[in-house]
């Protein structure tokens, strides 16, 4: 009989264990509002978990018989996720009502981080699925966390029901993978299959489940509604974190696939990418609400990233992870700015409300302008290189048509991104947005860091790019 605890190696789950401990501790933290210990505990937990990342870097810790592989890719993604969480904490400190007990909020957020940590490091579809479910169940609740807000509940119920359907579809894909190969491990996609005919179907169904997470059309429709309904700190988080985790899974899936499964995946990626660029950009054009505009913009951004997936052989993996890195900085920054501007506001912030922001709050306006310019992909911000690299990989892998669409889409996106800049730097005395917080707040500092990083990734992209290509060396070499 096999030994009971075979090849456990809890070391490789160090960050997750830290987070889990924090999540449990937070359940016992009492008190509400500013005096509550919840935020410090949560932030400390995340920082400790973040400290564990360099500890594991380069070690490629493997545990549980290959079900967990904490390679550099997983660690890079984890670092991004933890930073995202920190920024969303800063937003939450402002956005959550004083009276509410926030321990559970932060606890659920840490649970979701555990789920994503598992997803990004998993070598097995079932483990990925469980990570996704831990993530999803926490997020459903977070979206509806402020139950007094009608829109919040609407967002939560839509997110929950649609998310459950998507995970059911993912499960069907998992079942078919098992049927085709007798295993649910990712490497099974390259192994000889018992029923190879099932593999393309399985791959596509898995992509549907993951496409839901990255909000790629036609699985995207939840995103604008959920972002708008959720507390702004949660929207900030959802717009970045699950996408990063899901993209890492997609990268691994694409990297492990071969034969007909690979063809199916490629087709699905190309389809979602083109659809996303069309839907995201066109729908964003006529949004008046800033958060919905950013939601559609996120759909478009995910679509650009998707170009890198079928182009793994041409440096697509590095391009995708670099894009994710930059996307985190710029999108997080944009949402954090939005959170900062819309705190204590009822109703959504309209783009027109930003009129004249440049003269009243030059710092905020400058930051938001940098993020918008970066999202457009104008140099010398990181956004330019992110696009540049993905497009380059796409062309080299022979997806000239998709890249053409992407370039046109970028042109279209100028309309709505730069409209924000125009409005802010527009009328000297706009009407909206009085009473912005003065002085340095936590969120303000976070936004400042995002600005610096967004520009730095454009001025010194080399270092970041090296980290990104070091993250998925096997993918780059193996394809």
């Amino acid at each position, binding site marked *: *009989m*096999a*030994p*009971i*605890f*075979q090849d*456990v190696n809890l070391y490789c789950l160090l960050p997750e264990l830290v987070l*889990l401990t924090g*999540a*449990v501790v937070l*359940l016992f933290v*009492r008190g*509400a509002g500013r005096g509550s210990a919840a935020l410090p505990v949560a932030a400390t937990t995340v920082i400790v978990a973040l400290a564990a990342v360099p500890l594991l870097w380069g070690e490629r810790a493997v*545990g*549980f*018989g290959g*079900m*967990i592989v904490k390679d550099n890719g997983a660690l890079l993604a984890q670092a991004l996720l933890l930073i995202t969480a920190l920024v969303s904490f800063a937003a939450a400190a402002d956005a959550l009502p004083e*009276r*509410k*007990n926030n*321990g*559970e909020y932060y*606890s*659920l957020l840490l*649970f979701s981080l*555990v*789920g994503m940590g*598992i997803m990004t490091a998993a070598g*097995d579809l*079932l*483990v990925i699925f*469980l*990570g996704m*479910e*831990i993530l999803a*169940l*926490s997020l*459903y*609740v977070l979206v*509806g*966390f402020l*139950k*007094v807000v009608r829109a919040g509940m609407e967002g*939560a119920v839509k997110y929950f029901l649609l998310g459950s359907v998507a995970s059911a579809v993912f499960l069907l894909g998992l079942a078919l993978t098992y049927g085709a190969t007798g295993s649910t491990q990712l490497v099974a996609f390259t192994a000889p299959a*018992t*029923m*190879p*005919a*099932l593999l393309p*179907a399985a791959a596509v169904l898995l992509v549907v489940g993951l496409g839901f997470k990255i909000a790629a059309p036609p699985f995207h429709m939840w995103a604008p509604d959920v972002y708008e309904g959720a507390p702004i700190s949660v929207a900030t988080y959802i717009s970045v974190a699950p996408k990063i985790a899901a993209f890492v899974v997609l990268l691994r899936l694409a990297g492990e696939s071969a034969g007909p499964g690979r063809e199916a995946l490629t087709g699905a990626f190309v389809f979602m990418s083109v659809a996303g660029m069309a839907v995201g950009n066109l729908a964003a054009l006529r949004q008046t609400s800033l958060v919905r505009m950013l939601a559609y913009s996120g759909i478009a951004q995910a679509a650009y990233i998707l170009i890198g997936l079928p182009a793994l052989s041409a440096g697509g993996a590095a391009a995708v992870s670099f894009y994710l890195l930059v996307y985190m900085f710029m999108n997080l920054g944009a949402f954090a700015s939005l959170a900062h501007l819309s705190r204590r506001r009822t109703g959504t912030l309209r783009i027109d409300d930003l009129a004249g922001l440049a003269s009243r709050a030059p710092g905020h306006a400058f930051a938001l302008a940098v993020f918008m310019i970066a999202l457009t992909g104008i140099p010398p911000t990181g956004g330019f290189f992110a696009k540049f690299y993905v497009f380059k990989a796409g062309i080299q892998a022979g997806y000239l048509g998709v890249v053409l669409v992407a370039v046109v889409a970028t042109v279209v996106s100028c309309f709505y991104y730069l409209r924000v800049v125009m409005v802010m730097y527009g009328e000297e005395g706009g009407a909206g947005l009085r009473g912005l917080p003065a002085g340095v707040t936590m969120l303000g500092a976070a936004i400042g860091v995002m600005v610096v990083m967004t520009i730095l990734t454009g001025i010194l992209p080399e270092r970041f790019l090296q980290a990104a290509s070091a993250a998925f060396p096997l993918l780059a070499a193996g394809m």
Partner: protein
Amino acid sequence: METAIFWGLSFCAVAAALAVVFLRQAVNGVMSLLALMLVMAGLYLLLGAQLVALFQLIVYAGAVLVLFVLVVMLLNLERKPARPLLYPGKPAVASLLALCGAGFAAILRWAPPPGGGPMGGAVKPAPPIEQLAIDLFTERLLIFELTSVLLLAAAVGAIVMSRKAGDLS
């Protein structure tokens, strides 16, 4: 004999699933789902998965569905006038989707088995329950642990959600 049982159970399963979809009252839907669970348990037995069948009865029928019944009762959904829950035109969509499923099944059935794959009949021996336990706690230890994390998160979530809006904990 087995074949007859299969067809019988299949018929019941499809009927129960359709009943969930088409019965107006939520509570009837829940009851139909219960029926489906029971039929599924039968199918699992037919597949030689006794332990799964047992769990199906205990976990699903015993726990999950009771939860559903509880909520339906709690929300007094029955008192509401039975509004038309079915939209005209939507049956078309439904049948389309169902057709897709059936078509897919048909493809699997009649497509030439690539490389002479198994056409059935060659049944694997049902594993002893002991083997399942060993698998679960050795090779699959991680997923077992992860489900506990999942349940914990779900419990926290469910509590947060079902507490009254203004409550402090």
